[in-house]
């Protein structure tokens, strides 16, 4: 079930370079949310510019409170950063298909940049639903400042870090970390971040016969399957009927092999 809910803002703070965390009391929406799903948030009130809602992953949903983690990249996210406690904001969601959570010898969550957003909610769910199962969270970024919400994540599972400049953790790519992890044995992989990173992760997964779920992005108008705007091309799938998927409805989480052959 989806809801159109006016949430009440509890907090809106910066947690990293141009990155903010927004906490919203939104009981119905938070109650229905699953890890990997997203919301469409209305930015700017009483104006038609910006016009469209903005899609944001659900960073955490608990006790009627929805948390979003967003990076300021343009007009809408900049306006969001001006929201203050007590204000109301219209939310549409929860939307899309989230992560599939099954028992596994090792759950590997791989995040890059602000792509960690959905991983906190996912880690919380795995820990709650499959207590005792092995879980690792692998984070990558250009430098240490780009590694976000590490404390929150560490509470759920051990953290493994990699930075391009070596300022924190492994001096290299998060895929290097992953390679080491899955050498030790089979793992179920969940990833969200820049496309090149996710493609690297998917390749590793395929080579080691690990199941891998990826969380995609596309520019969206409606977020609910009505506009057919949020297409992603499936390379290799020549056939017209299968050429495209729609991120908002078929995803945003896909099995890697559905997208990249």
């Amino acid at each position, binding site marked *: *079930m*989806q*809801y*159109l809910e006016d949430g009440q803002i509890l907090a809106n703070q910066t947690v990293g370079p141009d990155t903010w965390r927004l906490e919203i009391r939104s009981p119905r929406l938070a109650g229905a949310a699953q890890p990997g799903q997203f919301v469409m948030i*209305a930015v700017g009130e009483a104006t*038609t*510019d*910006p*016009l*469209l*809602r903005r899609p944001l992953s659900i960073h955490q949903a608990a006790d009627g409170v929805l948390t979003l983690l967003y990076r300021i990249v343009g007009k809408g996210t900049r306006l969001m950063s001006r929201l203050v406690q007590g204000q109301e904001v*219209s939310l*549409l969601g929860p939307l899309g298909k989230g992560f599939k959570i099954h028992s596994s010898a090792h759950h590997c969550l791989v995040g890059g940049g602000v792509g960690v957003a959905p991983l906190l909610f996912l880690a919380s769910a795995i820990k709650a639903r499959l207590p005792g199962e092995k879980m690792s969270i692998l984070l990558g970024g250009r430098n240490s400042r780009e590694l976000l919400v590490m404390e929150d994540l560490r509470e759920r599972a051990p953290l493994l870090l990699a930075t391009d400049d070596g300022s924190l953790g492994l001096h290299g790519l998060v895929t290097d970390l992953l390679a080491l992890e899955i050498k030790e044995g089979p793992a179920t992989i969940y990833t969200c971040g820049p496309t090149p990173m996710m493609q690297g992760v998917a390749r590793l997964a395929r080579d080691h016969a690990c199941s891998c779920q990826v969380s995609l992005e*596309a*520019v*969206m*108008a*409606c*977020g*609910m*399957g*009505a*506009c*057919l*705007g*949020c*297409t*992603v*091309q499936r390379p290799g799938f020549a056939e*017209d*009927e299968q*050429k*495209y998927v729609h991120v908002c409805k078929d995803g945003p989480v896909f099995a890697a092999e559905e997208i990249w052959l």
Partner: protein
Amino acid sequence: MAVDTSVKIGSWQLANPIMTASGTFGYGEEFTPFVDLSSLGAIVVKGISLRPRPGNPPPRVVETASGMLNAIGLQNVGVERFIAEKMPMIRQLGAHVVVNILGDSLEEYRELAARLADVEGIAALEVNISCPNVKKGGVAFGTDPLMAARVAGVVVKESSRPVIVKLSPNVTDIVLIARAVEEAGATALSLINTLMGMAIDSRTGRPKLANIIGGLSGPAIKPVALRMVYQVASAVKIPVIGMGGITNLEDVIEFMMAGATAVQIGTANFINPAVSGELVKGFRDYLLESGRTSASELIGSVRL
């Protein structure tokens, strides 16, 4: 006090003038959590072609100032799957459905009309002769009075139902096209479709749409749409269905004052998926508060 919100499009009586616009409301089902579809005057489904179409490569949509560009490329499941998979669900939801059709030849329009002629539960056909997103088809018909009239003619001939012809705004004289289509026997006209537009990302130097050119919709185009509805409604005798940037009750009233018998809500469904249902209620309340007894009093009531 009793108030009559109904309007008539040919022989077809709508409970109220609020419709949803093609391509902005899917096939209806996505909106069931937010709108009682049966309460709407009608829903117009995404454009249907004879064969399925995959549509354009991404990116397909981009926001602009108070508007958006889309280049969906008329992606649709094709008429057969529409009839087999979508119509049963639509019937079951009790929606009054208008089927929007498009083709790239007179023959295709004829076949579509014929194929849909005896499908149960369709209130009317809307003929898209104006979609600006696909280079062939669409635009060519909608920008030439003769071709527009011929398309209207073949569909009218094949169809037992009201035929609404949807006009393109990307023309020098929309009244010319409207008159030609009226002569060809159309039951009603709907306008406007999107304005052809383009966006470029100044950082990458690339067009923001893979298709380069797309269709502009939303509040940005409302003044153009209202002007065209006013011009066309003043020039033809058949009903006009107005659309283009409608987001609230004031907009609905303005379009009806300009001469629209009914209106379609498009892009606004993306911003507030409940808006169409809210407007049905808001429209009834408005008639009451403004002391009117029927929707028809509003149509063309602009005071010059």
